[in-house]
């Protein structure tokens, strides 16, 4: 087990990349702590899988180094890196029994037969397949096959990291929850570094201690679920995390006030002069409908999602969502929306700007 460091890393699938847009992964420097549970979150095609494959050595980066601890493994083969990886679609060795599938990585590394036997039965119990160990893997259902893949990923105890590439896509919802819980338990028990790629925010937020959000080949934020919620570093994070995502409104920032279409919105802190396109971001959770205080809003639709209601409206032509508690009457008298000043984030060219005082 070791800390994983990415130095000046970038990757392009083109042989001769010209310009930024040819890079699937833009240059990045990151450190993944030993024993951390990370979720790599982002929409499809943002470079999550590319990054994962570079860490596991299935892909050689166009530039930069990958370090495990102090050791440079950029040119090392996958097998040499001692990594386990579980793929999006189940990969099982069809002609082998479930038992042989689980034992395969251990046998290839020449482990002792008694140890393999004990370890395989332990893993089989964990994934709930101990009763069908002697069955051929061919003909099992997709989620049974994926459980075998997961089991094969976890069977080695000495791995540097376990990488999961959207492993629960094919598994039914009930089992998903159970397996995720087991993964978490496994993480607590053995302390492996785990990196979990997903585009499902619930999966990411429940699994990981630290969520890494990627957008367009860049890591835009690496933080705890709370950081991502309260202070998204990029408008994409605000929009991608949360249901519905953060409201982003174009505004002009002067000191501790934001000006939108002539109306002034007080901010929680003062900002210095900002260049670029400025916007404010406010979570729907921190917006309240009022009878005259705040900005005028045109309500388009009210959705009842059980625990609360989502009010979809428009402020000066920009869609704004507000979360209202269940039971609150939404009447014609509610014509304005007020934002909690301390919860407003300010963005310049999509990146978050820290207040002038230095406070968060």
């Amino acid at each position: 087990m070791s800390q994983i460091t990415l130095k000046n890393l970038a990757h392009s699938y083109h042989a001769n990349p010209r310009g930024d847009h040819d890079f699937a992964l833009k240059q990045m420097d990151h450190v993944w702590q030993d024993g951390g549970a990370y979720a790599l979150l982002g929409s499809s095609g943002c470079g999550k899988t590319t990054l994962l494959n570079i860490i596991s050595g299935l892909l050689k980066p166009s530039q930069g180094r990958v370090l495990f601890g102090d050791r440079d493994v950029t040119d090392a083969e996958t097998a040499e890196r001692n990594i386990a990886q579980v793929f999006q679609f189940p990969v099982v060795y069809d002609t082998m029994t479930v038992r042989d599938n689980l034992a395969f990585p251990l046998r290839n590394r020449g482990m002792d037969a008694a140890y393999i036997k004990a370890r395989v039965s332990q893993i089989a119990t964990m994934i709930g397949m101990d009763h069908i160990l002697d069955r051929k893997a061919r003909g099992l259902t997709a989620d049974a096959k994926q459980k075998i893949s997961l089991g094969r990923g976890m069977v080695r105890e000495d791995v540097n990291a376990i990488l999961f590439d959207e492993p629960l896509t094919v598994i039914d919802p009930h089992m998903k929850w159970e397996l995720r819980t087991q993964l978490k338990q496994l993480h607590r028990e053995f302390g492996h570094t785990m990196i979990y790629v997903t585009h499902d925010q619930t999966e990411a937020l429940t699994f990981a201690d630290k969520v890494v959000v990627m957008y367009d080949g860049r890591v835009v934020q690496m933080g705890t679920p709370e950081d991502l919620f309260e202070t998204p570093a990029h408008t994409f994070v605000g929009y991608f995390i949360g249901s519905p995502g953060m409201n982003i409104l174009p505004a002009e920032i002067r000191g501790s006030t934001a000006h939108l279409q002539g109306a002034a919105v007080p901010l929680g802190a003062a900002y210095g002069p900002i260049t670029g396109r400025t916007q404010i971001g406010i979570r729907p959770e921190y917006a309240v409908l009022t009878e005259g205080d705040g900005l005028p809003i045109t309500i388009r639709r009210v959705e009842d999602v059980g625990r609360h209601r989502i009010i979809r409206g428009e402020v000066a032509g920009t869609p704004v969502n507000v979360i209202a508690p269940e039971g609150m009457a939404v009447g014609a008298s509610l014509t304005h929306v007020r934002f909690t000043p301390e919860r407003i984030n300010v963005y310049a060219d999509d990146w978050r700007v820290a207040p002038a005082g230095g406070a968060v």
Partner: protein
Amino acid sequence: MEKTQNNKAWFLVLPVLVIVAFSAVIPLMTVVNYSLNDTFGNNEFFWAGMEWFEEMVTSDRLHEALGRQILFSAIILAIEVPLGIYIALNMPKKGFWASVSLVLMALPLLIPFNVVGTIWQIFGRVDIGLLGHYLAEFGIDYNYTNDPLDAWITVIVMDVWHWTSLVALLCYAGLQSIPQAYYQAARVDQASRWAVFRYIELPKMAGVLLIAVLLRFMDSFMIYTEPFVVTGGGPGNSTTFLSIDLVKMAIGQFDLGPAAAFSIMYFLVILLVSWVFYTVMTNLDKEEGK
């Protein structure tokens, strides 16, 4: 809703019935007719019953031809299947060279059978053939018209040259359909090259390989044109395979009765072997799924 009873749809099957009748059933029945009768021409038939079948079943000539045929099919399968797999594994997977190798591999398959025979007939000749001439230059005593072993080698090499491509191309198609994740998982699991072949490539190729083996078995068991053009079944009878013998009997000697009985048995043997083969292979597949 009340269903209308209308059986006129059966008429739509009629064209197929007519075509199959003329292309398969009627010619086959003619052969059956010949096999049960004796004839001296003029459309005069004398009932012979099972006589021709009995004669053919006990005929040494047929036994020898059958033996040669089995040996030939066994040898070419033993060479073409592993060689085809090996070539498929080493063909480029994508890019310009993948297209080039596909075209090159497909070329032998596009050449008409008797042209293949002629090519090798001339290629192997000691007097003017490139191969025969240079083998003689190097002091190798090679002559497919005199030496049965040389004739066999020539016929086998010719068949391997002509048909290995088929096995290779089918296997190649099977290999191309394996998702990249399997190879990646194998690398993560530290599988050896042999294990990748044994547990990933071979199982995924099994389906197309079955078809390849079946096609090569049937074709080689019915082989006629190429050895006929090269050796004419000789020297002696050494390369007289079943169909060559059959044609000799039917057209050369005009023994239509025995030849008809022979061809019916020949047909049944191929049908039987192919069926057994197919059933065994598909059952293996099912059992594994249990």
